[in-house]
């Protein structure tokens, strides 16, 4: 790999990093807190690549050094030759632009909530009060719904179709990045026929009240919500909880 190409690969990776973190695309892959780090590392790569390109165009003050390095590592099929692979994520970002995870991942995750501290405070005021889907699941399953009794809540998530023709409201959460996403699911009750026919992946806001589930609480329990209204919405900027 010549120095020009090395410089171009560095620039491309840097530009791709800046491009996804400049807007909101990065939220499909990682958490919001990563943004400053992505901007800084994108900038670092652009500077490194830019300076290397200047070196290369000026003829390189010590081309021998770099090339002997290549000889040493080239025979091992490792070395800077592996750097070509860095074009794969760049291509993925610019050509395919992988979307946020959705129904496919949610369907694969059978655990619904991790048993957690039961000392959950009361819900904030509001009628209806917007509640994160994961928060609703935790409160319903591990706090026996105590903090939900008598409250009108609104939940945001996407439609996850079930084999029996019904659907669950689901949303994914990231522990770190999209490689470890896990799902929260709620079963809506009393959906209108029109709401029931929504296609998988549609984003909706459900308003309604918690009702107790006849099943015992386990990590797989899917709590219920008695729905009073269903509204189709645009996918949120941050697709994850």
């Amino acid at each position, binding site marked *: *790999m*010549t120095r020009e*190409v090395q*410089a*171009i*690969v*560095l620039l491309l*990776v840097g530009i791709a990093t800046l491009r996804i973190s400049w807007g909101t695309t990065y939220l*499909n*892959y*990682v958490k919001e807190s*990563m943004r400053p*780090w*992505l901007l*800084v*590392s994108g900038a*670092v*790569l652009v500077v*490194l690549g830019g*300076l*290397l390109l200047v070196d290369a165009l000026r003829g390189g*003050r*010590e081309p*021998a*050094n*770099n*090339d*002997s*390095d290549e000889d040493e590592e080239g025979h*091992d099929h*490792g070395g*800077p*030759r*592996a*750097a*070509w692979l*860095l074009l*794969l*994520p760049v291509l993925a*970002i610019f*050509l*395919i632009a*992988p*979307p946020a995870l959705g129904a*496919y*991942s949610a369907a694969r*995750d*059978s*655990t619904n909530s*991790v*048993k957690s*501290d039961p000392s959950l405070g009361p819900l904030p005021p509001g009628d209806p009060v917007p509640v994160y889907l994961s928060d609703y699941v935790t409160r319903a399953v591990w706090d026996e719904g105590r903090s939900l009794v008598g409250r009108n809540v609104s939940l945001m998530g996407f439609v996850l179709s079930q084999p029996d023709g019904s659907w669950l409201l689901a949303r994914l959460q990231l*522990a*770190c*990045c*999209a*490689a*470890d996403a*896990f799902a929260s699911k709620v079963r809506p009750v009393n959906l209108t026929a029109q709401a029931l026919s929504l296609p998988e992946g549609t984003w909706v806001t459900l308003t309604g009240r918690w009702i107790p589930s006849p099943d015992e609480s386990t*990590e797989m329990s899917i709590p219920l919500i008695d729905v009073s209204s269903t509204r189709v919405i645009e996918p949120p900027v941050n697709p994850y909880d």
Partner: protein
Amino acid sequence: MSQSTKTRRRFHLGPLEFLAIGAVVLVVLQPRLVVLFDQPALQTASTVFVAIIVQALPFLVLGVLMSAAIAAFVPRAFWQRALPSNPILAVPVAGAAGIVLPGCECASVPVAGSLMARGVTPAAALAFLLSAPAINPIVLVSTFVAFPGEPEMVVARLIASFGTAVIVGWLWLRFGRPGWLRIPQRMHVEGSTPWHTFRLTASHDFLHAGGFLVIGGLAAAAMNVAMPTEWMEALASNPLLAILAMAVLAVLLSICSEADAFVAASFTSFSLTARLTFLVVGPMIDLKLMSMQAGIFGRAFAVRFAPATFVTAILVSSIVGWWLLS
């Protein structure tokens, strides 16, 4: 110098031309590519792949900047003075140094490489390689947060990870052969000034380690989509199988050590000892690390180092888990 010009003339199609032609072809084919990826499993895999690279990238950049700074600005003699001359003592000291230096596993591979190039005993640099991502302050705090009400998990992680790093370092000292390990030679990227050396080394290391990160990311993304979730639930019920399963999972999932505690915590059906094994194995050996280690230290090294580390990590975490977590 003459040799290099010869090599370049042998290619009819230079890499630069290849890059340009490739770009044009891909832009033309783009609509077809998008259709090809318009399938849930492939789409999920591509999202996971990009997510792993994007998540690891800032840590990799930090790591190569740190290792380039070591190569360019820290005088060689410093390491000889900082570490005990007796290699048996240098191993635990280097392992303990991992507590102070924050870094994730993607960063520690190039850093360990540049320590070796600076004359640090390979066994000590390897102990540092294993301990730095596992027991640094960021990782311990995230473990504390991920296991509320179980602070002994933090202690167990610290002890088991440090223990594994030191034992593997000593094993290398006793049984390792110099021929297995290719010590990265820094002399080749010596620039005209320390600053020039710094940026040449950083560029070179990033391209090098980044390429292998991509291989690991591809493998982890494939696993993420291909592994049936029911398997895991069946494994959790058997205590011994649970430990092995979590160890294998740590290797396959290739999660950054800053985040693995949250993932471990979510495997609630598994015992605490099994989850400790996940936390000890993950930062030391996983798909992307094996790939990066093979790239930097050579394949002969990776095929010996990875299994040795894997087995030691499982044994040490089982003992520490039995002692502290039951």
